[in-house]
């Protein structure tokens, strides 16, 4: 995980292309499909799956996560601030 994280936005097509570079895909309903061919379940909302427009793409070997404020706060606390505190 890089030490300094920069939050950035990406257009829908660019997001899809980045996902495809890591063998993910996007189905016709806008849900992200993992490299095994399954939709990715949300870790926050039961029975919901991650859509391309409301997911977070994490640097490094691509990870896909919820992009709710709480999920972003968790990412910041666990990955960004821990990395900062150990450098």
């Amino acid at each position, binding site marked *: 995980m*890089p030490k*300094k*994280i*920069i*939050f*950035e*936005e*990406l*257009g829908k*097509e*660019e*997001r*899809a*292309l*980045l996902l*495809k*570079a*890591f063998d993910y895909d996007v189905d016709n309903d806008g849900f992200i499909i993992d490299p095994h061919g399954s939709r990715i379940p949300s870790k*926050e*909302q*039961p029975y919901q799956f991650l859509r391309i*427009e*409301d997911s*977070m*793409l*994490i*640097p*490094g*070997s*691509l990870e896909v996560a919820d*992009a*709710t*404020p*709480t*999920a*972003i*706060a*968790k*990412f*910041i*606390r666990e990955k*960004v*601030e821990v990395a900062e505190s150990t450098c």
Partner: protein
Amino acid sequence: MKRWKWLSPPVEVILETIRTLPLKEALAYLVANGVKAFAVEGYAALKKAIQDKQNESQYAFVPNKNEANCLLNFARDPNYREVLILIPNYRFIDLIRTGLLIDWYHKHHSPANRERVTQIKLQIANRPNGRKLLKIADLPTTPFFSVILRYLHQLKVTGYPRHFLEEEFEEFVEMWQHASKMVQTEDTVDDVVSFCKKQIDQGSKTFFVLGMKTASITVENALQELVSKKILERKNYDYLLTKSEIGNAPRIELMFSFKSD
């Protein structure tokens, strides 16, 4: 070859162009040049180039970077820092940060921000145990948040362990709405005294009264009455008075707690 229909420059030229571009710009360049997928002959090198850039990248791609940066900046918020000191392992600590974001939207109100608050709250409410989670996220949006943190700080100074502070915080999440009064300009001393008496009669372990601007005088007078009539003493309650100023406006916090001896 068919792929040249999609791509104006040859792959080698594209590859050379994106070689020096940051990830975001490289993706934009590919999209602009008709690259929609990598499952095309000759695109493996482009795919590899994007993978390499992502592996080295510092970018977390989110729907709204301003919001994410706002969340990031709460690391410097005094209340959030206090939370990290008092209850660093609290399992819903990320909801507190979310609550600070909601509070930020409240303070920068606009139709779009109000709409965003509604969305965020709906997302939280739809989670399992959403009612409680919403209460946690709401807490930082109230003036009682800092009062509660001050109370927990007192407990910490007294030597209470972290798990106890977490339990206390959880209790406050459930009860603060019933055990707190924000005194309004139109409230009288009797209104405040009667709120306090009700809390005492109900056996509330802790309760709060907060007054700002002219209401702070009402709070002080109410305290004087509670003390002079020995209501607190008789019922075994302690109080902690904190005075501060927001701008030039006085703010007064009263925290009452039962002395269990």
